[in-house]
């Protein structure tokens, strides 16, 4: 070794130090800064829940907002809330994304001379609006969606104080015809409350109450309750759906009467006629109605409605025998120009059968301001004639959701000053002169009252992410800025103090209400009697514009509602529950129609009405009448990161093809147009998430006839003896409880009840939000790369062995009147003998001590063998770095900190919300006890409106999941013949067959 002299030594030392320093320079040092003052109540790692209210639709479900370290990360139902009892629908679940939407307005925006919106300061904006209001005196109008009672009351006072001309409430799907019918029939201005939980025969005249009806979560729960019960477990409650299309709601029915759209009223009266004449109904009903119903005989109504007379008579007799029938009046899709009469006819049926006061409650006149389409049209006329100086728009997107035939957009051009309170850009803000962004509901105070007696609070759970202000506060400041008499009439304080004052006398009492989430009482029913002019309803065939061979049915989208959810990426990606299509619109045509037009799956057709032409691809199915074209609402936006295709329309807006018409009571009519369809020669590849709805007899979704169930009830106590009858279930081939470590107290398992599952996908949305599942976009869904860990598979019957040779999905025929659609929620089955585990070369997927099939993302190298070997196909692969591409700022704030965000090249899947299990385990460990039954549940089970999913410990013999799973008649394991020993037990759907009468 050469000698190391001093100079050499120093050189080396210097060089090393330099190198070390250079390395140290490469990265900026980031520091974790601890709280100097720990915020009260916040413990890192422990979630805090705040009671609030979901304002996504007028149903106003109660919320528990789960926050972590000051950020809302998940919305769950408030268990004490009478509307939703702890559940929450998919739209409610994903509405959390509104707060974190990347394109929210950062501050007030003013349209400059160049026509673009530019940010300004709040003071400036308020002064500007105050000045404009002064100029427009008496020509100011407010147009907006449903607001809570406090805001509504304030708006009325404000309108009066500033000398505005008036205020119009506009809610596209408001049940205006139903309210009109209630007023006509009973003289009460209120929405009837339907309670299905005690019903033994449910007739839905196309209200689609499980999707977009009056209160979907509540009704889903009630339907499940009604069907599950019955005397001595007979499960005899029947559900008949009457409507032109086999919707998701109809898929849950026992029988589907494919009536011509708009003939629901006729059918209701014909059914009432049969029921009353065969001895059913109340004496009062018979006395009042029997004579006038005589002309609605089964034969002639059968001819008008397309429903066989035999069915009308049979169901009519069944209604006569039923102890607690409930009939629901038609909803938005079937709101024709005679919708009030249709709704009235159905209410008459309810009344005649004695359901009013029992299953149908008519509350007292609640004095609420209601949406009125006639008033909207009147306002448009004022705008056209330059009688509106300032238009204030809130909580609605009329440029999108009003028919172009109403000429709202043109009328808006004539309004000198348009103000929008929207928090994110939409088609209407694109035409506003001033945008004063409102908070999102998670940032804001407020309240809601979905029905008399139920008052629900909204409280902020995060400091506003953007420089936004509550609309009420903005208007208060504007009023004050106007000075003089106006300022004097503005109430003291802020929106918060208004809410507080409206709710309670003391801050302490307010705190208590806040903790509960509201005040919940039963509505006081009105003493109703049939009004004299009730029989003047003109129940007849619908009036339709144009002379096409089809009727155009605009179907309210269960995912996008009236289009308001279109810019929430999850709602675009979570597929339609019936067609399984994502990210676009489609036209449902019957197989026969498609054959006649010469079009197939995905072929583009042009649909012409008097109001316009739509070009969109076809989804052929058996579940729609031959003379109907059904198109969902909600697509066709031209603004929005996810709602539009870079500013071009994504899909079509069906409203563009509808003439602007009202029904008898001034409500908006949707079933208004006839249409022609022709082939265009174009083709579109749908992005679907279920390839085939035909299970080829593979026992993924099973059904048991009611008779088998009754037989088992008779032979109670010798369930095993049914082996012969129900051998296909193979429930007891193994003991799933043994598939965890012998020392572990737990083997987590699940029971999924197909008879309760309605296919609504609330669980899917909950899973997306809970588990940080990325949204991949239309093109990736088209390639089958959707990332959902949980999917609802829709199976039509047992299936056949036909088809599968082509590239298009197999579309089974569902046109029969006996409905047998099974919705099977497919999660990872956490198999005891999991095929995925042995094939992983690096043990990235393994069996944990509690029997869960764990996934170690850090260990995964992405061979994807596990996914090939999973027969259920529940594993998802990160083909790209989805979380970088699909979570633009500030969306990462809503990520669940307990769940790893998966990077490119790793496999992922459902782990029964292992993070929730871990949280419960830590808590139990602290308290030195085992986890109790019901203490931990998965996000999907938590969200489910019908409690179709039960999660728990299979080793605890007394647990709810064991009780549910141990069902010798209905229990089965999916693909049991593969011997995967799944921890999920499915409970077969009960097929009840046709209604007997």
């Amino acid at each position, binding site marked *: 070794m050469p000698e190391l002299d001093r100079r050499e030594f120093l050189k080396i030392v210097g060089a090393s130090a330099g190198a070390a320093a250079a390395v140290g320079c490469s990265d900026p040092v980031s520091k974790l800064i601890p709280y100097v003052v720990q915020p009260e109540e916040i413990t890192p790692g422990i979630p805090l829940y705040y009671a609030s209210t979901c304002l996504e639709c007028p149903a106003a479900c109660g919320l528990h907002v789960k926050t972590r370290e000051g950020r809302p990360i998940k919305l769950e139902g408030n268990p004490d809330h009478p509307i939703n009892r702890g559940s929450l629908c998919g739209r409610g679940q994903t509405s959390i994304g509104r707060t974190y939407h990347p394109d929210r307005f950062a501050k007030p925006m003013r349209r400059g001379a160049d026509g673009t919106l530019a940010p300004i300061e709040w003071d400036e904006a308020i002064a500007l609006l105050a000045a404009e209001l002064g100029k427009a005196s008496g020509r100011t109008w407010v147009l907006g969606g449903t607001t809570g009672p406090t805001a509504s009351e304030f708006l009325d006072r404000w309108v009066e104080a500033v000398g505005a001309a008036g205020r119009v409430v506009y809610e596209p799907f408001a049940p205006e015809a139903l309210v009109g019918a209630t007023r006509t029939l009973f003289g009460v201005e209120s929405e009837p409350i339907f309670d299905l939980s005690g019903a033994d025969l449910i007739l839905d005249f196309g209200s689609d109450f499980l999707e977009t009806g009056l209160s979907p979560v509540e009704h889903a729960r009630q339907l499940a309750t009604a069907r599950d019960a019955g005397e001595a477990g007979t499960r005899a409650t029947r559900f008949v759906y009457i409507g032109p299309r086999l919707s998701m709601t109809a898929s849950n029915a026992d029988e589907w009467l494919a009536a011509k759209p708009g003939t629901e009223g006729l059918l209701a009266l014909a059914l009432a006629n049969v029921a009353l004449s065969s001895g059913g109904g109340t004496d009062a009903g018979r006395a009042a109605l029997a004579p006038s119903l005589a002309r609605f005989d089964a034969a002639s109504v059968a001819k008008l409605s397309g429903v066989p007379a035999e069915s009308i008579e049979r169901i009519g007799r069944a209604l006569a025998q039923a102890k607690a029938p409930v009939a629901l009046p038609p909803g938005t899709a079937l709101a024709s120009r005679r919708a009030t009469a249709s709704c009235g006819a159905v209410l008459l049926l309810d009344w005649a059968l004695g359901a009013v006061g029992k299953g149908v409650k008519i509350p007292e006149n609640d004095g609420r301001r209601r949406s009125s389409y006639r008033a909207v049209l009147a306002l448009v006329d004022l705008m056209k004639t330059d009688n509106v100086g300032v238009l204030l728009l809130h909580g609605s997107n009329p440029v999108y959701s009003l028919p172009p035939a109403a000429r709202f957009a043109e009328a808006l051009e004539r309004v000198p000053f348009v103000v929008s309170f929207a928090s994110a850009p939409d088609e209407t803000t694109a035409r506003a002169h001033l945008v004063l962004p409102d908070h999102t509901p998670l940032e804001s105070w407020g309240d809601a009252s979905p029905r008399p007696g139920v008052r629900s609070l909204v409280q902020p759970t995060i400091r506003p992410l953007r420089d936004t202000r509550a609309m009420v506060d903005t208007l208060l400041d504007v009023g004050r800025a106007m000075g003089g008499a106006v300022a004097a009439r503005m109430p003291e304080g802020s929106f918060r103090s208004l809410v507080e004052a409206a709710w309670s006398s003391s801050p302490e009492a307010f705190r208590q209400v806040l903790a509960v989430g509201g005040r919940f009482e039963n509505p006081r029913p009105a003493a109703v009697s049939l009004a004299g002019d009730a029989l003047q309803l003109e129940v007849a065939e619908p009036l339709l514009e144009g002379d096409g061979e089809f009727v155009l049915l605009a179907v309210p989208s269960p995912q996008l509602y009236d289009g308001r959810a279109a810019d929430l990426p999850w709602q675009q990606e979570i597929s339609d529950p019936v067609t399984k299509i994502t990210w676009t619109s489609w036209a449902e045509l019957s197989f026969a129609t498609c054959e006649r037009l010469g079009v197939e799956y995905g072929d583009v057709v042009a649909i012409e009405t008097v109001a316009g032409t739509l070009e969109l691809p076809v989804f052929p199915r058996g579940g729609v009448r031959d003379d109907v074209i059904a198109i969902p609402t909600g697509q066709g936006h031209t603004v929005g990161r996810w709602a539009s295709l870079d500013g071009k329309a994504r899909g079509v807006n069906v409203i563009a093809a509808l003439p602007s018409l009202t029904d008898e009571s001034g409500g908006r009519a949707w079933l208004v147009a006839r249409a022609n369809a022709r082939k265009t020669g174009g083709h579109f590849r749908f992005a679907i998430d279920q390839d085939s709805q035909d299970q080829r007899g593979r026992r993924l979704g099973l059904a048991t006839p009611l008779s088998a169930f009754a037989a088992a009830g008779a032979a109670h106590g010798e369930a095993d003896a049914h082996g012969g009858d129900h051998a296909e279930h193979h429930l007891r081939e193994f003991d799933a409880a043994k598939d965890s470590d012998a020392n572990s107290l737990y083997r987590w398992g699940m029971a999924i009840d197909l008879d309760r599952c309605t296919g609504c996908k609330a669980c899917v949305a909950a899973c997306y939000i809970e588990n940080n599942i990325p949204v991949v976009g239309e093109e990736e869904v088209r390639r089958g790369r959707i990332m959902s860990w949980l999917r609802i598979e829709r199976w039509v019957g047992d299936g056949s062995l036909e088809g599968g*040779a082509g*590239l298009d999905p197999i579309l089974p025929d569902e046109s029969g009147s006996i409905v047998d659609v099974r919705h099977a929620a497919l999660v990872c089955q956490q198999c005891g003998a999991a095929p995925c585990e042995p*094939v992983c070369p690096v043990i990235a997927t393994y069996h944990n001590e509690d029997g869960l099939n764990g996934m170690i993302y850090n260990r995964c190298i992405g061979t*994807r*063998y596990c996914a090939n*070997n999973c027969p259920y196909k529940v594993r998802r692969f990160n083909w790209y770095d989805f979380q970088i591409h699909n979570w633009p700022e500030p969306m990462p704030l809503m990520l669940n900190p307990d769940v790893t965000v998966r990077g490119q090249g790793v496999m992922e899947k459902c782990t029964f919300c292992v993070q929730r299990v871990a949280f419960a385990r830590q808590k139990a460990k602290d308290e030195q006890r085992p986890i109790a039954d019901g203490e931990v549940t998965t996000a999907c089970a938590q969200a489910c409106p019908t409690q179709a999913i039960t999660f728990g410990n299979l080793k605890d013999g007394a647990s709810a999941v064991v009780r549910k799973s141990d069902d010798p008649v209905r229990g089965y394991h999916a693909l049991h013949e593969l011997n995967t020993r799944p921890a999920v037990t499915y409970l077969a759907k009960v097929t009840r067959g046709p209604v007997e009468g």
Partner: protein
Amino acid sequence: MTPPPPPAESVAAMIRPTPLLADSQTNRDVMAVFMERPGLGWLLLIGLCGAGLVAGALTWIFQIYLGLGIAGYSHPIFWGAYIVTFVFWVGIAHAGTLISAILFLFRARWRNAINRSAEAMTIFAVFTAQLFLGIHVGRIWKAYFILPYPNQRALWVNFKSPLLWDTFAISTYTLISLIFFYVGLIPDLAIARDRTTGWRKVLYGALALGWQGTSRQWKSHTRTVLHLSGLATPLVLSVHSVVSWDFAVSIVPGWHATIFAPYFVAGAIFSGFAMVLTVMIPVRRIFRLEHIITDYHFENMTRFLLLTSVIIGYAYGIEYFIAWYSGVEAERTSFWLRAFGPYWISTWCMIIFNGVVPHIFWFKWARTHVPTIFVVSTLINIGMWFERYVIIITGLSREYNPAVWGHYTPSIPELLIVIGSFSFFSIAFLLFLKLFPVIPISEVKELEIHARSHGHATSEAH
């Protein structure tokens, strides 16, 4: 039983620095192949393949950066063209060892003319195949997790996984094939060393490991070759058996079959021989080696093709029979849709090219008509690629849950990478042609001397 020692003349020829004997024609012919300056054709070919390789490599880098999403995968079809091509190359890699080891043990002397190129092909094919293990995984930067290396986190690999068996099988096979190839090359390297100057002399000198051709060296060499043959023989059967278990061990309909190991081994030999023919026919023509690689060699190889074609034809039949006979609806559906579903073209390509076309070799004229052999062997190569495509893609596209049936079409980046792999293989082989003796000089000369001394015709096997 030991092979007979080489005759004395041959030993003398080996150690003499300059060619003196009449058989030096062989030396000259063979040496000419790799000593001549590369011709225009060679340069064009290597340029073309170089372009393909660069395109493939850049696409791969792009794929590592962006993610596997750029390939055509969809939800149920998690394995695609990469695994298809991987299995294809592993199959190709079988001919070399089969020819070198098994035919050596069986004393099929006609193998001598082709065994060097077949072995080289084995090495390059197995390297190409291994590339795909890296290309296929989602996180290549963590691919070393698959090795059972000691670490403080006590992480270990899963010995139950066929993918791990695969890793070991392929790496063992690579190692043994490489050693086999190299040991066989040593005497020829010595010849080359003695006849070259400059950098080639240095290279061959180093690689020849001081070979002098002494009888002691020959004795050791012969014994080594024999023992290596013994070691390599089971590998020929095991490697593709293990590769087949990648599929057979799973529960995917169309994969889960006990016939897979012999079926795959036969298929591998089939494709390997076809590839040797596809490559050697033009090589023989270009380098004018007709007197060394004679039609007799080709005819023997076509006999192998015929035999293995019958075996895999039988396997195809048995697969369908068992699918029907099992009564399992998922199996039946999978096979029915294999033939009549969206991938029917691939399936019928596979059946016709592999199971029907080779039957032409029942006829002597076809076995000896070189253009026919070339066309058929090329069709077999295509057919064998499609065989793996059919097994992997159709199996995955129609599994147990009809809700997640899906479709797969190779994407352009995927095809670029597959083309890149063919370019990689071709470049390696082209360089081999110009760097090493493509015909085993010593073994051919041994045959010639043997033939002369026994008065047999050169091209006749024993």
